[in-house]
């Protein structure tokens, strides 16, 4: 059969601007080459021209859904170089925000997964339920999506007392909703048919290619930075790492569902144990001594790391951002191979690839 070359994108092969060049044989994909870069902002260069505080808002921008995950390793790296220890209450608030952002990002993932399958209800429900958590984040950090809330030395403001009640209400509501999601979407025969056994990434490949996040865990590798290279207060918390050996698109969605349950459990534990006290060190100025630091956290899509070099000046000498989407880009040729063209969008979205985050 003759081959056909097809360019998908750059206008939204899924969500965000990115192109995939497919080679088709009939209905089947025999080769897929990703072509990123349409939303490249030069964040690493920008960071060399702004001081350590001015850098915070713009470094969050590539990852609006998971702003805390994006800025968490940055503040950890700055604090590591400055050799300061953050007050404990601030550590708890940071973890609460990080887990809230994980839920917000995962809900968006489920919504877009739904619309890629032509399943409008699965688009409407998670987007609606996401508001519950956005409101909660708004109560804590004062903004809906990008907060600039984490700063070197703590968090910008203390959270109001009513958060506990609001969080309990949100979690109780959402735990029931997750069961409904399972009925309407996860166990939906149409969804299963188009994702089970599709987009396979074997365990060996996942390790070799250095894949991260839910995609890695769906390929049977039990690895999560929160446990492996623990940071902040995660070693004091009790939570599970969901793993699946199915290696397919369906199991990637399942991992996201389970992780939202774990995140809610973490938020509840934090709110129960959060101590009173200051939330920010009283730093007169951010003076970072020369040196370098590499820090990583488990953001919503996987390991997000910063390699920060300071020469003792007002601005960083070099900021290297490595995002989970950029690292998972390498899987696209593997998971697409042999997939039907009609199943390309869900397979693409299965790895939770976010073009803006990848291009930085």
């Amino acid at each position, binding site marked *: 059969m003759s081959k056909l070359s097809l360019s998908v994108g750059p206008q939204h092969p899924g969500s965000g601007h990115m192109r995939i060049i497919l080679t088709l044989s009939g209905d089947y994909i025999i080769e897929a080459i990703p072509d*990123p*870069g349409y939303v*490249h902002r*030069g964040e*690493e*260069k*920008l960071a060399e*021209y702004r001081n350590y505080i001015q850098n915070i808002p713009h470094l969050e921008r590539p990852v609006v859904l998971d702003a805390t995950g994006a800025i968490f390793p940055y503040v950890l790296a700055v604090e590591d170089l400055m050799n300061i220890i953050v007050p404990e209450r601030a550590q708890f608030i940071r973890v609460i925000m990080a887990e809230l952002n994980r839920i917000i990002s995962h809900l968006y993932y489920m919504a877009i997964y739904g619309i890629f399958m032509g399943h409008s209800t699965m688009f409407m429900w998670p987007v609606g339920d996401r508001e519950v958590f956005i409101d909660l984040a708004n109560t804590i950090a004062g903004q809906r999506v990008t907060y600039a809330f984490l700063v070197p030395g703590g968090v910008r403001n203390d959270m109001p007392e009513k958060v506990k009640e609001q969080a309990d209400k949100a979690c109780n509501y959402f735990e029931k909703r997750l069961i409904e999601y399972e009925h309407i979407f996860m166990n939906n025969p149409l969804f299963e048919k188009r994702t089970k056994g599709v987009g396979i990434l074997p365990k060996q490949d996942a*390790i*070799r*290619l*250095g894949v991260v996040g839910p995609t*890695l865990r769906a390929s049977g*590798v039990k*690895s999560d930075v929160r446990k*492996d*290279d*623990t940071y902040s207060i995660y*070693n004091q918390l009790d939570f599970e790492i969901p793993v699946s050996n199915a290696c397919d698109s369906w199991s990637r969605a399942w991992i996201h569902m389970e992780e939202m349950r774990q995140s809610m459990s973490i938020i509840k534990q934090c709110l129960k144990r959060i101590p009173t006290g200051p939330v920010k060190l009283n730093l007169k100025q951010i003076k970072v001594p020369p040196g*370098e*630091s*590499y820090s*990583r956290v488990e953001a919503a899509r996987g*390991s997000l*790391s910063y*390699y920060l*070099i300071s020469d003792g000046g007002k601005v960083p*000498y*070099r900021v*290297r951002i*490595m995002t989970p989407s*950029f*690292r998972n*880009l*390498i899987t696209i040729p593997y998971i697409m191979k042999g997939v039907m063209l009609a199943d390309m969008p869900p397979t693409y979205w299965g790895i939770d690839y976010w073009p803006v985050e990848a*291009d*930085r």
Partner: protein
Amino acid sequence: MVETSNTESTLIEREQKLAADLKSRFGDVLEITIKSKRIKIKVKSERLLDIANYINNELGFDHSTSVSGVDYPNSKEFEVVYHLSTYGREDFRDIVIAFSTRISRDEPKTLSLINIWPSVEYSERETFEMFGIIFEGHPKLEKLLLPEDWNDIPPLRKDFKPPGR
């Protein structure tokens, strides 16, 4: 709290063991620095492949988390840093090795490590376009994120000034 100090003491042992392994095996490693869970190894660029092979095969660091270029115009050098981590070795999962070499800024060439760590594919490509560093042996050293018609110097070099700055 006792538990934390325990894991920390074993962490120091593990770090020391890794560093000692490398030092005894390769006498010509330029510098090894250890700083809580992060080990930096500086090597000469011609020794890159041998030592990378050892870190992958013997120490079990099976993937690269990032490849970074750093520009030092004053000493006319680029530093190429490979950050390495492991999934296979559970006892080393918290450790990140920064494996680095310095190359001349006038003739920025180094060997690609793609045959040892396939995970460097896009990171090396990005470092190529952002710094102009040529990774010899990389199968597809082309533009990745920059516009196709970019005709200025590589933008992450210190002598490239963004418009308005």
